[in-house]
């Protein structure tokens, strides 16, 4: 899966890069205005580290990359967003759908535990959970990319109507109501590129 993962990471980096100013602006509305810069820093080390380790076992590489991403980004976003990267190395080409389901399950479990966050709190979980639900329902079919993309778009726009129960946005006068969550937006970008690359 090295070449698929290489596409995932390189394309995610490119799209995060071209969206980083917009992500900063989005974070300006609900946070301290630096999510775009922060996730770009994270994706920069992810890309560099992946390209430097093309011959290592994928699982080892992804665990190491996840740690570098966490250190580079810091904050709540670093520790939570690096979790999917940590789990993603457990992909199994021969058992693709089931292994993706397990990656999502494990990621969601760890994000919930570490972030003390649940569905509907206006966080990155509100992207992961609907995708997992779809994958579970369609586990015996070939997953359709455009269906996944629809779910990603819809899940992201739904974060607009949520009041933040976690993070800094929880303390805003309107709890971020009316704005999409910046972490959910960058997660949507990264997951879109993920399925684009591996399916």
């Amino acid at each position, binding site marked *: 899966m090295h070449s698929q993962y290489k596409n995932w990471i390189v394309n995610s980096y490119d799209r995060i890069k071209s969206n980083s100013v917009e992500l900063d602006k989005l974070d300006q509305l609900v946070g301290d205005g630096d999510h775009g*810069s922060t996730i770009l820093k994270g994706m920069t080390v992810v890309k560099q580290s992946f390209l430097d380790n093309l011959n290592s076992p994928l699982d080892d590489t992804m665990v190491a990359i996840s740690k570098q991403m966490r250190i580079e980004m810091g904050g709540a*976003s670093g520790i939570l967003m690096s979790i999917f990267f940590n789990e993603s190395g457990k992909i199994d080409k021969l058992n693709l759908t089931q292994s993706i389901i397990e990656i999502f399950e494990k990621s969601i479990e760890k994000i919930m535990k570490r972030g003390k966050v649940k569905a509907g709190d206006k966080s990155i979980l509100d992207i992961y959970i609907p995708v997992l639900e779809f994958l579970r329902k369609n586990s015996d079919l070939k997953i359709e990319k455009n269906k996944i993309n629809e779910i990603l778009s819809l899940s992201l726009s739904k974060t607009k109507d949520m009041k933040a129960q976690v993070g800094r946005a929880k303390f805003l006068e309107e709890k971020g109501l009316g704005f999409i969550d910046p972490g959910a937006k960058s997660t949507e970008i990264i997951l879109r590129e993920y399925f684009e690359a591996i399916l």
Partner: protein
Amino acid sequence: MKKIINNKDNIVDDMLSGYIKANSDRVKFSSVSKRIILRKQPKNTNKTAILIGNGSGHEPIAMGWVGEGLLDANVVGDIFAAPSGDLIFEGIEALKENSGTILLISNHAGDVMNGEMAIELAKEDNIDADLLLMYDDIASAPKGDEDQRRGGAGTTFIYKILGALSETGENKETLLSLGKSVRDQTRTLSIAVASGVSPISGEKIFQLDDDEVFIGMGVHGESGYGRQKISSSKKIIKFMMDKIFDDFKYKSGDVVIPFINGSGATTLMELLIVYNDVDDYLAKYKIKCFKPLINEYITTQESAGFSISLLNSTEQMRKLWISQSSAPYFHL
């Protein structure tokens, strides 16, 4: 944005480098990371060590409080972002020869997640380390939900009092227990007058009209009791002190330690006027003030505003509060 920097990516590193050069008699970088500040002369290892991990952009806290009688280490994150759990763990590891370590964490989402991770990593390595969560900001969660509150300027009392007690050789459990008592006896309320500018985005952190203030706003512009028109110091202090008195039962004869912290762009002139009104308010209730701390310590760039923190103190707390410290930026 007008800020005197070289390069956005190097703000924190350039700042820390300047800090260490200027205070090389008292502090140094750890050998593993230039994001970990240690005391030049480590305390005796038979004493418990105290450290904190926090985001930068709030100077002089917390790097300025590393020193004898205060903190043993500060793990420094990027601007307004907690350092990763991995890095905080390295800070704990640097102190592992000590008789236990207490990791102080101010209650903000990223700080807590990374602090908890660091403690888990320490436990895996059989290092004796505990986390002490600090919270004091009464505007951020209602009475009864104290542990949901944000860490504000009143966390200073915990840093200083535990730092001083640790020098006497008291064990970790006694320190943790006193830390919790200090936390329980502390209340903080802040007011924002004007927003600072984020060095990363170059934008104001929050929006306030020229004639408006915001009572209860957190250090990053988080919401509290809401906006009101600016008025006299006396009126503002009455509003704020009434809120603090609604939250905590003070009684005649109590001795409080006040801390008036400026947010970065409020003059000492104003902070002293504020203190004068706080002292008068307390005097009406026959509450005595003991050695207040008044200056800009926990800042958010060029934000204007201040916070009032009160510690309802015991004699032991007062003695520890005024004990000597060599930390470069803590001056009572």
